[in-house]
Each structure stands twice: as C-alpha cells, then as structure tokens.
C-alpha cells in the first residue's frame, strides 16, 4: 500500500497554507468572537451604554496587545484595517504626493507593487531595487537609490514566496539617518518573527490579523511610529468616528483620523485573543518552533531527487514559508496530488507576487509553497516529506505511514 492510498482514509487534512491564512486557530480566538457576539455585540465608541463601553474596551485591549508585541509606545497609534493590503494602500496613498520618490524591492507582493504602480501614474517616482536570484536584498543598493525627493522606503519583512527575511533593521537605520519614512509589510512575519518598531527603525508597520497572529480574516492594521507627521497623512476614507461629532470634518488625531465607520469589532475581539496567545506562548518560542519546523522540512526535502528548493535555504534567513518545484510536474499538478492523494493542503502558483517570481526565475509557472505554522507538528512534516519523495519518484508504491500511524 502506498502512502497515497493509505492517507485517503484519513479525514483531517494536513494544513500547510498558513502563509495564506492560519488554520486552525487557538480555541481562545473563536471563543472570544462567540462571547462578543453573544454577550457584548454593541458598537464601540458610538454610544455611552455599558455594552458599547465593553466593546470599546475589547477593541482597546487588542490595540494594547499589538503595541506590546511590536514594541510601540502608544497603543492609540495602532489603526485597524480590513487586512494588510488596506494598511499598505493607506501608507502609499496616504503619504505620497506627486513629485515624491519611493523605493521598494524586487521581492514584493502585489499588495505593495500594485498600489505603487497605481500611484506612479500620478507623478510619484518609483525605484524597484533588484534582489539576488535567491531573493536577497543588499541594503547598499537601497542606499544608492536614495535621492533628495525620496520620501518613503517600503519593504516586505519576509517574502511570501520563499520566506526569506529582508534586512529591515539595516534599511530602517539607513532611512532614519536620511530622514526617510520606512514602512514594512509584516503580513508573513507578524506573530512568528521578531519585530521591534524601535530597534528596527520602523515608522509604519502593516500587519494582517489572520496569519501568524491567529485572528480571523477581515482583520489587520497599521502601527504608526511617533516619527510620522500625522498632519500630512491623508486618510483613504472619511466618516463617522464617534468623536467630534459636532464637526463635519475628519478628526486629526489617531486612531480616529484613519478609522472611519463601525469597525470589525467581533474580528478584533478574535484578533486580540490571537495576539494574546502569541504573547503568552512568547514570540521567541513561536519563532524558534516555526524555524525548527522549517529546518526539518528543508532537511527532509533537500535530499529528494528532482526536487528543487527556491530561495535561500538557510533557516536563520527565513520564516515559515518554503517554496519548491518537482522536476517533471507543474506546481498545480503537485498541489492536486498532495490534496487528492495525500490530504495535504498547500498553495501553488505565483502567490500574488509576480515580481518575486521574476527575481527567482520561477515566472510564470510559480512554485509549490508550504506555509508552516506554530500549530503544525513534526509528524506532519515527516509525512509530507515522504509524500513529496513518493510524488518525485513518480508515485511508485511504498509502505509509508500516515501521521496518525507514525
């Protein structure tokens, strides 16, 4: 009996798509959401009754937990958005004006690239700094691209294709020395890699709630450092904030300046529980564990004939995302085999990052991507390694065991 035929009976899928969204979530997350829906339910900051105040407390506590996680002094500088994409749009469209120059790297996700390409049409100048064929960015290349009009450098913290970490502290220090704003896309790292807005010189940190922070989809935000001049920040939208209601113009203070309309309070309640889960486990332990799981996967698949890892495989250089291809198969064929025959769920293709795949030489076919998470187990990794070996051999039969049997 092959690994493939034996695993079909197993009902619980092995979830390796945490780079897209984490699953499962710690029970505290959906418990907090259920409690909010059943027992709180009210609109935070709109009314003065006790349930409205309780809703506002839950939203505030989530800001406070995020500020602690990112080492940001003032929790009111955490602004909630729908996702990291909205936060990144806010940075690009809220801070750049015609004539400004902005720098990014060649490993970016479309959540950075598309807003930048859009604002380029308005007369903002864009420089995309090249990266090595394994996706590394040299901070000196950023330094060489700086002009007098450079207002912003925006970089991903880790590639969503290779998991490769960017030298954010070096680039941040450079930006701070030059008086340039530094924005970081932490979609892949918030919750599973160390982020310190002070030590890393980050002025604007865009995060998503539903990946390594374990919140539900529809949560995310922007953490804004004290260096950012709010007078120059243009909101993407205006509207009701529950504050300064006598005025028909938008308040000029955070978080209300950038948060119009009723927030996703139930989602933010879940996000708060997810961030508290990370803080309790400790970010250092989470990072150690996902690094260990990545290393186990890399070590396991490195020896498989016909399997090629994409990116820099040194585990200290990457977070929990691993990309590869298997000779003779398209990424989508591998993904379908993993899903149908081995009960393993992952993501294949371009991962919304065409620039990164051009850099890595994997455009347009893309890669197979395993997005590991804190809640994955060693036996799941070992099983997946065996499955990939079987696929690479052309699906020959072998006596292999499911994770339950291991």
């Amino acid at each position, binding site marked *: 009996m092959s690994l493939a035929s034996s695993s079909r009976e197993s009902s619980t899928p092995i979830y390796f798509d945490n780079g897209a969204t984490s699953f499962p979530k710690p029970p505290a997350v959906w418990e907090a959401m259920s409690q909010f829906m059943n027992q709180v339910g009210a609109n935070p900051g709109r009314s*003065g009754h006790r349930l409205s105040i309780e809703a506002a407390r839950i*939203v505030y506590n989530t800001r406070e937990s995020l500020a602690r996680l990112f080492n940001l002094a003032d929790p009111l500088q955490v602004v909630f958005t729908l996702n990291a994409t909205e936060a990144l749009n806010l940075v690009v469209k809220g801070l750049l004006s015609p004539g400004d120059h902005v720098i990014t790297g060649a490993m970016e996700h479309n959540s950075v690239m598309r807003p930048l390409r859009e604002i380029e049409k308005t007369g903002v100048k864009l420089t995309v700094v090249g990266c090595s064929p394994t996706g590394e960015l040299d901070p000196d290349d950023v330094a060489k691209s700086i002009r007098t009009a450079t207002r912003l450098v925006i970089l991903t913290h880790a590639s969503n294709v290779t998991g490769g970490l960017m030298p954010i502290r070096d680039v941040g220090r450079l930006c701070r020395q030059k008086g340039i704003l530094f924005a970081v896309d932490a979609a892949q790292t918030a919750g599973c890699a160390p982020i310190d807005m002070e030590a890393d010189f980050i002025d604007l940190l865009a995060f998503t709630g539903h990946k390594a922070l374990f919140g539900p989809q529809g949560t995310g935000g922007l953490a804004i450092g004290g260096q950012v001049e709010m007078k120059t920040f243009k909101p993407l939208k205006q509207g009701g904030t529950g504050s300064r209601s006598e005025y028909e113009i938008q308040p000029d203070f955070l978080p209300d300046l950038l948060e119009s309309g009723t927030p996703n309070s139930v989602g933010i309640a879940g996000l708060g529980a997810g961030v508290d889960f990370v803080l309790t486990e400790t970010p250092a332990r989470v990072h150690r564990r996902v690094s260990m799981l990545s290393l186990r996967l890399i070590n396991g698949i490195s020896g498989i004939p016909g399997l090629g890892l994409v990116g820099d495989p040194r585990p200290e250089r990457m977070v929990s995302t691993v990309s590869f291809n298997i000779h003779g198969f398209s990424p989508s064929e591998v993904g379908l085999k993993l899903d149908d025959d081995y009960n393993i769920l992952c993501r294949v293709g371009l991962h919304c990052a065409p620039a990164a795949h051009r850099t890595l030489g994997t455009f347009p076919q893309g890669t197979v991507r395993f997005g590991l998470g804190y809640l994955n187990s060693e036996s799941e990794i070992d099983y997946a390694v065996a499955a990939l070996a079987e696929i690479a051999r052309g699906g020959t039969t072998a006596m292999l065991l499911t994770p339950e049997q291991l």
Partner: protein
Amino acid sequence: MRSSGFGVITFNSTSHAIQAEKICRQRELQIKMIPTPRKLSSDCGISLRFDWHDREVVLAALAERNVEVDLVAALE
C-alpha cells in the same frame, strides 16, 4: 448649582477614554464611564466620572501616562 461631588473628564475619542479608564482602574481609583453630559459636548462619546476629592490623583495618573484630556469639569 448643587454639586454632585463628582467630576467628569471628556476625551478626544473613545479610545482615549478607555485608555484613561484602564489606567485609573489599575490604580484602584473609584471611577465610572458615563455618556458624555450634553452640557459639556454635543458628542456621542463616553466620559470618565470620578470623585471630586480624587481630582488631583486622577489627573496626575493620566498626565503621567500622557493621556490626552479634552475637558475637566465638576458634575452638577
């Protein structure tokens, strides 16, 4: 005008008000969050009610943590 013995602090936003509430509760000050009195603001927000005797302690606690305060008033 008869004094209630309470004071009230208004804030720029609900987020500031909740921040202030949390700081006061951590110091075990006797406070209550109430809808902002109509006379103080046309706003729909919430305010922090405190014992007038604790005025200096409350304001010092908020100042120490850099919480922005809008208005401080005695409650009728």
